[in-house]
């Protein structure tokens, strides 16, 4: 198994810098993997039981291998509708929160302006406020203004809690940009819009993408806020919640597995691209 040989490589790890050769079990590694196993246990359970052929309505004990749930992945009309709602709400959130958050992040990263402190405070509050409070506050206001809750109130709520996350992600990127590149563009005769389009935006793009994907992930996963403001509209997490009493169909495991696979593929692509970039 893995043994931590403390080769004296400068800057790799503080313990290794002492140049003393150590040969002992790396308990930290085992511990980290044990925690990872804990984190992945319910996911592995979900994936395994997407191939299960349960006897009754409860997909809890292993009965036998089958692929029929993948063949009939879209057999539940209500589940499909919930999934469709989840995906479209997440896409809308990604676009709206992406645009608003990018503009906000650029302003915070580049300019000093009146109300900057207050903006930071409101963003901090929106991020750290518990979801129950955000959901309850929005529902209270919708109730008092006689707004019927549904699809669009859900989009409004999702954009509200995602916009600060996008702004922080974009701001982090803006701060690392070299302002001289934009100066160079201006010196070469580019107007402010051209400079933005051809120089600033491409350099900000990784940050905007990361922020947008974060918004998508937060939106599609949200349960608590959505449960307050969605009215009669059902999303994927809400549908699962409603189905627990009568037994969750294996199709839920299939959809969960498919979503997870998409995430996994994106993550792997991301790692490979980052490695390639590092090697030049």
């Amino acid at each position, binding site marked *: 198994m893995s043994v931590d040989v403390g080769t004296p490589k400068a800057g*790799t790890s*503080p*313990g290794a810098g*002492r140049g003393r050769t150590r040969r002992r079990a790396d308990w*930290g*590694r085992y511990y*980290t993997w044990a*925690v*990872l196993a*804990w*984190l992945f*246990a*319910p*996911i592995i*359970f*979900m994936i395994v039981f997407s191939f299960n052929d349960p006897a009754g309505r409860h997909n*809890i*004990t292993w009965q036998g291998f089958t692929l029929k749930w993948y063949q009939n992945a879209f057999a539940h009309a209500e589940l499909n509708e919930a999934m469709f709602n989840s995906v479209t709400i997440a896409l809308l959130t990604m676009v709206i929160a992406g*645009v*608003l958050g990018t*503009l*906000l992040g650029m*302003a915070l990263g*580049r300019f000093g*302006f009146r*109300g900057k402190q207050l*903006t*930071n405070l409101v963003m901090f509050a929106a*991020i*750290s406020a*518990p*979801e*129950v*409070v*955000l959901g*309850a*506050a*929005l529902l*209270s*206001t919708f*109730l*008092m203004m006689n707004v019927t809750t549904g699809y669009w109130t859900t989009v*409004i709520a999702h*954009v*509200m809690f995602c916009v*600060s996350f996008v702004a922080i992600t974009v701001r982090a990127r803006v701060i690392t940009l070299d302002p001289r590149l934009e100066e160079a563009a201006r010196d070469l005769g580019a107007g402010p819009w051209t400079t933005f389009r051809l120089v600033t935006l491409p350099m900000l793009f990784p940050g905007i993408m990361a922020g947008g994907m974060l918004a998508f992930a937060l939106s599609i*996963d949200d*349960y*608590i806020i959505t*449960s*307050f403001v969605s009215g009669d509209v059902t999303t994927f*997490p809400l549908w*699962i*919640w409603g189905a*627990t009493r009568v037994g969750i169909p294996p199709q839920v495991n299939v959809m969960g597995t498919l*979503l997870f696979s998409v*995430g*996994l593929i994106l*993550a792997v692509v991301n*790692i490979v691209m980052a490695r390639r970039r590092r090697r030049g």
Partner: protein
Amino acid sequence: MNNRKTTPYALVLPAWVWLALFFVVPIGGMLSLSLTTGNVVTGFQQTFEVGNYATAVSSYWEQILRSLFYGGCATLVCIAVGYPVAYWIAFRGGENKSTYLLLILLPFFVSFVLRTISWRFFLSDNGMLLGTLKDIGLLPEGLTVLNSAPAVILGLAYNFVPFMILPIYAVLERMDPHMVEAAHDLYSDRIRAFTKVILPVSLPGVFAGVLMTFIPTSADYVNASVLGGAYNTMVGNVIRTEYLVNNDYPIAASITFVLMGLLLIGIFSYARALGTEKVMEVHA
């Protein structure tokens, strides 16, 4: 030059409007709702009924205290589980640091509700884990894990431990390894180097992690509903039931404000004791 001055305001305006309309105003709206009297049939009248708060607290103090207790326990579990992982990835992760971080975030690709329900199935009396161990004879036949306080606390810790790992990792990763070398050069052993050098440096990360786990765990109701059964309900369950089932909005809004107030008092005293900048800086 006028153009340059107005640019930042043009940039922040859309987000400002959105956050004002759908975050700041609703908090005020909820405050106003918490002071009304009436019911769904007759409507709610603004009577500045402060008594709603007394009713809310006297009816639900048990759930409030339980929430703070469960949240506190889950936060401690997150520190115990998360700190060593963050430490190991930051100092020993080597070239694979980003891969390990990704593995920690990967579970988020599965819906929070689905993961929690998965635990319920995984831990059910005759499910994959307990059923198997009982069949081998490692566990007594009558053992139940679900519907208990530890099940809720472990569920909460499970769902929020990445929020503890990431900020601690962030500060340890930025730490200058020479500081630890210096400690060793000055003859401190591994334990003293940790308590005197590494731990103080990492504390802002722990503070941020505590905020990011304690607030959502103490206000959560998904874990209590799915893993806790009928006797471990938290204040989140109460808020949800009052709003969506009983439609007793004034009480629902009051109890939400009580929760918010308690958390704010907690955050402010916490920030005062430790310095606001530290907390906000790592958080952002």
